[in-house]
């Protein structure tokens, strides 16, 4: 005989099991980025240091830099790293690039089309579209913006100081 409380537990276990299977079978998840996405991202990491890296598939320096982010993530697996691909691009191409860079398991987002003024403003009101761009967001919400290819030392020192 199953009581209501037991039923609730059983349902919860079922949900967990189902979700775990969905995650594990396809490690490279590319989430569609729109003007509400950045608020969602910030809400997911409230009061935690967060590194947001914006890159583009048609941006040569971004592609050259991307594996460097893969190495940084490997060096510090606990780093909260969110990547946003901001060019108009096929999802397969985005997947291939992040997998090549060792970032398949990072939190990856991608624009469906080139980010417009409204979408860029949702991330950074002063961003005019240059890439790559990295936002170091402290637990108390202070944003440090790094323009262009980063020096990994700067990011790692910031993380050490903000953990």
């Amino acid at each position, binding site marked *: *005989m*199953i009581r209501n409380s037991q*039923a609730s537990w*059983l*349902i919860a276990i*079922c*949900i967990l*099991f*189902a*979700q775990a*299977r*969905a*995650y*594990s*079978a*396809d490690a490279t*998840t*590319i*989430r*569609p980025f729109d003007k509400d*996405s950045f608020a969602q991202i910030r809400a997911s990491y409230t009061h935690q240091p967060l590194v947001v890296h914006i890159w*583009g*598939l*048609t*941006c*040569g*320096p*971004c*592609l050259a830099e991307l594996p460097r982010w893969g190495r940084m993530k490997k060096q510090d697996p606990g780093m909260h790293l969110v990547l946003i691909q901001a*060019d*108009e*691009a*096929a*999802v*397969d*191409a*985005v997947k*291939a690039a992040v997998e090549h860079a060792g970032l398949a398991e990072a939190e990856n987002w*991608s624009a*469906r*089309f*080139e980010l*417009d*003024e*409204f979408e860029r*403003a949702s991330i950074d*009101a*002063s961003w*005019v*579209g*240059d*890439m*790559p*761009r990295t936002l170091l967001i402290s637990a108390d919400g202070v944003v440090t913006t790094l*323009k*262009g*290819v980063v020096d990994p030392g700067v990011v790692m020192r910031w993380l050490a100081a903000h953990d």
Partner: protein
Amino acid sequence: MRLRSTPFLEPAARAGLILGLCLLMSFAARAQAEPPSEQAPPSVPAPMHEHAQSEAGGCVGTGLKCATAVTPAFDAHENLWVAWVAGGAVSVARSTDFGRSFTDATTIGQYGDLIDVGADAKPQLTIDAHGRAVVAYGVFKDKAYDAQVWISTSASIWAKEGAAFSAPRSLSSDPASQRFPVLSFAPNGRLFAAWLDKRTVALARRRGQTQAGAALAFAWSDDAGATFSSETIAQDNTCECCRLALAFDARRQPVIVFRAIFAGHERDPAVILFNSEGNPAREQRVAEDHWSIDGCPHHGPSVAVSADGALHAAWFTQGKAHQGLFYARSENRGQKFSEAMPIGNAAQQPGRPSLLALGNDIWLAWKEFDGTQISIKEQHSTDAGRHWTNPRIVAQTGHAADHPVLIAHDGAAFLSWMTRDQGYRLIKLETS
């Protein structure tokens, strides 16, 4: 009356139902997780659609109304032609009523997600006095996001049977990556093309060296784009992701303003002029902005040449010395430019400039964004850029919009602009 609580199902049946639901959820999760479906768990947004190109801003199809980048050109018979990219296709069409309606739409090529339409990339369209037309654009060709410049030509856009554009073909025979074509018929009837080319970067890589950016390449065609001769590298350190700007000077030779890479990753505007034999001179710096960035500004300049021979340049920068949109002029073929003049409201992301010269009248249009509205503003000068009118808003939208393009027709200046909500518009700019 007291209601009696009745169990929905007997306990054994309830257990069976829960187990059944569990199995269903498990199968549903499996269906979600395994290829070809790539949906994420319910707690995150669904992954991207594989063919998102055809749905820009909720607009489905390859028609002009779904275009994200439009380039206009007038022919000698008062027709306005536009080339555009929508839904992964490059198309052209003709308007006999100054852009209010279009007919004779022709699809030049369909490339899906591989068409180069982001940031500063636009299809190019040029038409000569005899009705010969050329369309050019970039298409990505491999996983490294190398691109190729394709061109399509029409021997006569006035032909009774229609404009009949040729099947697209590669502009260059070199296998290196090529993007951002710009081309125009010179006053002498020859067709000039310039583009960003990675052949010297590839050569440096083969030698174990690193070369930043791309090269600025050019070629001439004497048969309206059917063939190009002597592809030449004019400059080796050009920003690889910013459009080129092209005009012709009083000697009927090309003038190219572009974003060069100077020492220290400084991506500042430069100009290259050509001598009377058609050979490029060494580049000259337009401004010392000192925008040092190992990255892609995705933001190219604009150029025009007035009747008095002065060169006019407008560009965007985030340099140490200047930040925002700027204008400068040169009276000595680029040897010295005037002090950079700030354009627009620096707090509203002024950028995407378009310059147009009509005699000694100079028009400058650009884009601004105040957080809720995108505006196209203009200023003009009647004395070859020495004095300017105050900025004026020409058009606005609260939705996604293309960059502004200024175009001349019959001695008047027009703004060509595509917005998601208002569609294509050709707006005459008033002088008062």
